[in-house]
């Protein structure tokens, strides 16, 4: 192995260890890792820039802008209270309604944004009902990762896969991953009820206080709401048609974001830009450059060759290996760097003669997205909810989450294995 490849592996492992340890913010660590690859001459600046996937970044930034402006209208609170009333103020039905809303919203927004919108209203409803927020928060974490699995824009691993594999359209993600996400959610709902129904009891008076709420009061600016809904609708329509229109998903999201800013005026721009999660954006930039070091020095190609050797090039075995490896790894590591490493590896398998890569891409997406449910550190949404809950005096402990999250994650991966096998490998 060449000296540069050894350096690249050393930097990659060191950075990965630092990301896992959480001693230093992951964005700083990833950026330093990427910069080291350039400073040590493992990749030159031009090549490093070439490896940064601006489609992933543009899609995230565009959606963050649209959602931050839409959240200002009170729409998401309105939907949550409306659903709570439709659930007749019953705490168990409300828990399921909020989980389903989280899953659906996570499919069309990213799941970190979704939980940021859902958690405050969850605190509000549970306080009103005088019940523990824990069952609500944990079911929303699980639902956000399941819902995010269903679409190209739902979860960062899917955004990255969709961006790297141009043949896979927005519709392909829905058609191939949507059914599994729906089945997993259908299986989860009765389990949620069985697990938590005894923990969330309330009184008829408190139920009535939910029923009496006036959700219309929550919509502050009706004119802004109409603009947001129009642009959000057009953007989602754009995602469905992006391949027909020969547009990248980032172009659709950014066009939506800037159309909305044009309609709302300059005064919204400053605030919307401050709500873009720049730390996440730079985390991606650092990772893309970090992984480029492994790609350019041939390390990824060698790993792909080893994986093919291990499975004898058998497509079914390779798919299952990727699905389960992604799931277990994503449960305990951040799934974004994992997927950033796996994408070039699967592409390299294609160069080595594996003709049908589709099952491998879907296995990676299912493993990485659903695997995030395995532990509290498995996905960004989990950490965000835990952080918000802890700050408000309702900490979610690692082991406490693991007891529910890990078995439910394994169940979803068993369902996914059956699905991948029968749909693509039979």
């Amino acid at each position: 192995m060449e000296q540069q490849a050894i350096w690249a592996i050393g930097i990659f492992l060191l950075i990965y260890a630092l990301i896992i340890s959480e001693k230093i913010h992951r964005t700083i660590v990833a950026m330093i890792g990427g910069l080291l690859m350039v400073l040590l001459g493992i990749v030159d600046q031009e090549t490093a820039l070439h490896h940064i996937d601006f489609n992933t970044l543009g899609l995230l930034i565009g959606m963050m802008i649209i959602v931050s402006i839409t959240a200002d209208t009170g729409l998401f609170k309105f939907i949550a209270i409306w659903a709570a009333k439709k659930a007749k103020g019953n705490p168990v039905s409300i828990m399921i309604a909020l989980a389903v809303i989280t899953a659906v919203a996570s499919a069309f927004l990213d799941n970190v944004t979704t939980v940021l919108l859902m958690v405050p209203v969850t605190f509000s409803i549970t306080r009103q009902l005088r019940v523990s927020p824990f069952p609500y928060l944990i079911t929303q974490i699980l639902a956000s990762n399941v819902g995010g699995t269903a679409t190209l824009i739902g979860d960062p691993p899917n955004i990255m896969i969709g961006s790297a594999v141009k043949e896979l359209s927005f519709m392909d993600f829905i058609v191939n991953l949507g059914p599994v996400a729906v089945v997993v959610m259908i299986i989860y709902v009765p389990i949620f009820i069985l697990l938590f129904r005894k923990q969330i009891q309330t009184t008829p008076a408190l139920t009535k206080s939910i029923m009496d709420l006036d959700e219309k009061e929550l919509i502050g600016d009706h004119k802004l709401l109409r603009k947001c809904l129009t642009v959000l609708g057009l953007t989602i329509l754009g995602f469905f048609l992006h391949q027909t229109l020969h547009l990248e998903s980032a172009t659709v999201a950014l066009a939506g974001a800037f159309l909305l800013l044009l309609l709302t005026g300059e005064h919204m721009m400053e605030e919307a830009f401050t709500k873009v999660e720049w730390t996440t954006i730079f985390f991606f930039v650092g990772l893309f450059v970090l992984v480029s070091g492994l790609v350019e020095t041939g390390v990824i190609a060698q790993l792909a060759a080893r994986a093919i050797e291990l499975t004898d090039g058998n497509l079914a075995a390779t798919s299952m290996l990727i699905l389960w490896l992604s799931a277990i790894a994503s449960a305990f590591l951040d799934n974004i760097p994992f997927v950033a490493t796996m994408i070039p590896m699967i592409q390299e398998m294609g160069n080595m003669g594996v003709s049908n890569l589709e099952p491998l891409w879907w296995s990676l997406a299912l493993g990485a997205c659903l695997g995030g449910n395995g532990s509290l550190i498995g996905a960004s949404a989990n950490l965000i909810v835990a952080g918000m809950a802890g700050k408000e005096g309702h900490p979610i402990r690692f082991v406490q989450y693991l007891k529910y999250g890990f078995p439910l994650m394994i169940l979803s991966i068993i369902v996914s294995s059956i699905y991948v096998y029968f749909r693509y490998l039979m």
Partner: protein
Amino acid sequence: MELTYRYNKDVMEITEAASDTDVEFDIRVLSEELWPGMKKVQRFFEDNRVYTDVLFYAYADHHYRVIVRQDYYVDFILSLLKHRLVESAEWT
């Protein structure tokens, strides 16, 4: 020392009940003129970074139930004062 406040009973109705952790307010805004101020108070506490400090529940006819965490009681009263929903507040 206790924080006491005065308000115009012709335009507002305020009742409060304390529990171990919270103070629950029942507020009716009887004057249209005061309504924007009430919305500003709500917006302030909903936009800050603490999610459970002051929780607002809106009912019909400008009627609010507000659950205020004990440690945010003073902040809430001062916010009402700032937006002229209460006329004075003092330590007694």
